[in-house]
């Protein structure tokens, strides 16, 4: 299954913890900083919602890149 389909399936199943992982994976596969940040923001938001253990790490990365407070 493609990553895109995995993400769609996770959205359908409301599996938010899985979305955190899949969006991070997506961020690692794109080339531009803006694309990376887009996917990382997606991962961060779902991480925030579920209280994911990676939330502080994602937050730190986004702050470092100047896209989050």
């Amino acid at each position, binding site marked *: 299954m493609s990553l895109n389909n995995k993400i769609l399936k996770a959205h359908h199943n409301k599996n938010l913890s899985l979305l955190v992982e899949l969006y991070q994976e997506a961020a690692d596969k794109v080339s531009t900083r803006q694309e990376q940040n887009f996917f990382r*923001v997606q991962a961060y*938001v779902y991480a925030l*919602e579920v209280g994911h253990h990676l939330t502080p790490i994602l937050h730190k990365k986004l702050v470092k890149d100047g*896209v*989050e407070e």
Partner: protein
Amino acid sequence: MQKETNLELVRQHVSVANGLPNEHYIDQSVFDEERNSVLFNQWAGLDVCSEVPEIGDSKPINFMGLPLFIIRDNKNIVRVFQNTCRHRGMILVEKTKKIQGAIRCPYHSWCYSTEGKLISTPHVGGPGQNTDENIDRTKLSLVEIRSHVWRDVIWVNIDGTAEPFEEVMASTIDRWKELDQKLYHGGEDGKFSLKVKGNWKLAVENYCESYHLPWVHPGLNSYSRLEDHYHIVKYGSHSGQGSLVYRQLTDDKGQKFPDFKNLSKKWSTGAEYIALYPNVLLGAHRDHAYAIILLPLSYSETIENIHIYYSQPNTSSSLKKKNKDQWKEIFEEDIFVVEGMQAGRLGVKFDGGRFSPKMDEPTHCFHDWVASKVNDFRNNNHQITNVTE
């Protein structure tokens, strides 16, 4: 168009006063006026903390057209917020649920902490950019509603203008200070709801007095006679009734609920039932207590949410069920009078009714309070915010 009812007769001595005019029960504009003058600017009951027992638990509540939600935050404090995202006004909490991390708006995913702080605004500055120089998160927290917890009840002062809760409710708090002990909610065996086709005030009025007991509650009256009751009347604050012959419930094995600690002798066979204005009805006994929160749905419909409490956490489940069933039967017996009084107020020549000076003072006390608050509101030229249209 706003109807301005004449409340002069209501505020007379009980011996000559009339009750509130019909419009206070059957007119939309008066309902709207009361929402602002006797509910939103006072300390009104909204729900109980036991409905959100664990950190992160949240529950949406529509309070007279106002979308709110309650939440137990990460510091174990129960808070009340307007259930509206600061971005596009989307409803944030659509159903009872546990917030595991942040409250995420389902529309554009603005995220709030359980304390109401705006903590992320994804893509607000464009794709992948969560900040924007014009978005100051510190000014975009959720709108918190002023609240106070007493006897597990969450009281809210929507417009934020009331004096502190402890001051407004001082006489009731003082009256029941020996009962100010840890309350344990009865769980599923300790709650039920009733929907009544009647104005919320009629439920208060019926609760205030014991006059109706011999006819409406003949079973109760067999051991708790009319003459075993006394009035509780505190003009400007609360009213109700007390009983001198409370009898503890027992199960098949003769078990009773454990008592609250160190109560005075009065409570050995005493019980008190107080309507704490505007919309909370409280009951207290040596071994259990309850709170009824009246949520007006419209001028002619009310939800009664009943919660029963005990002095210990692990009391007999069968006994709790028996107690719940007993109270439910009594409260259901009252429904036909509330609905009948509502229907009777369509009689255009009804003048608000005459009170029995001996038996109806607790009811008049409530009418007098409503009339005084409506008058204060009118005298201060407050504007009515109509949220039902």
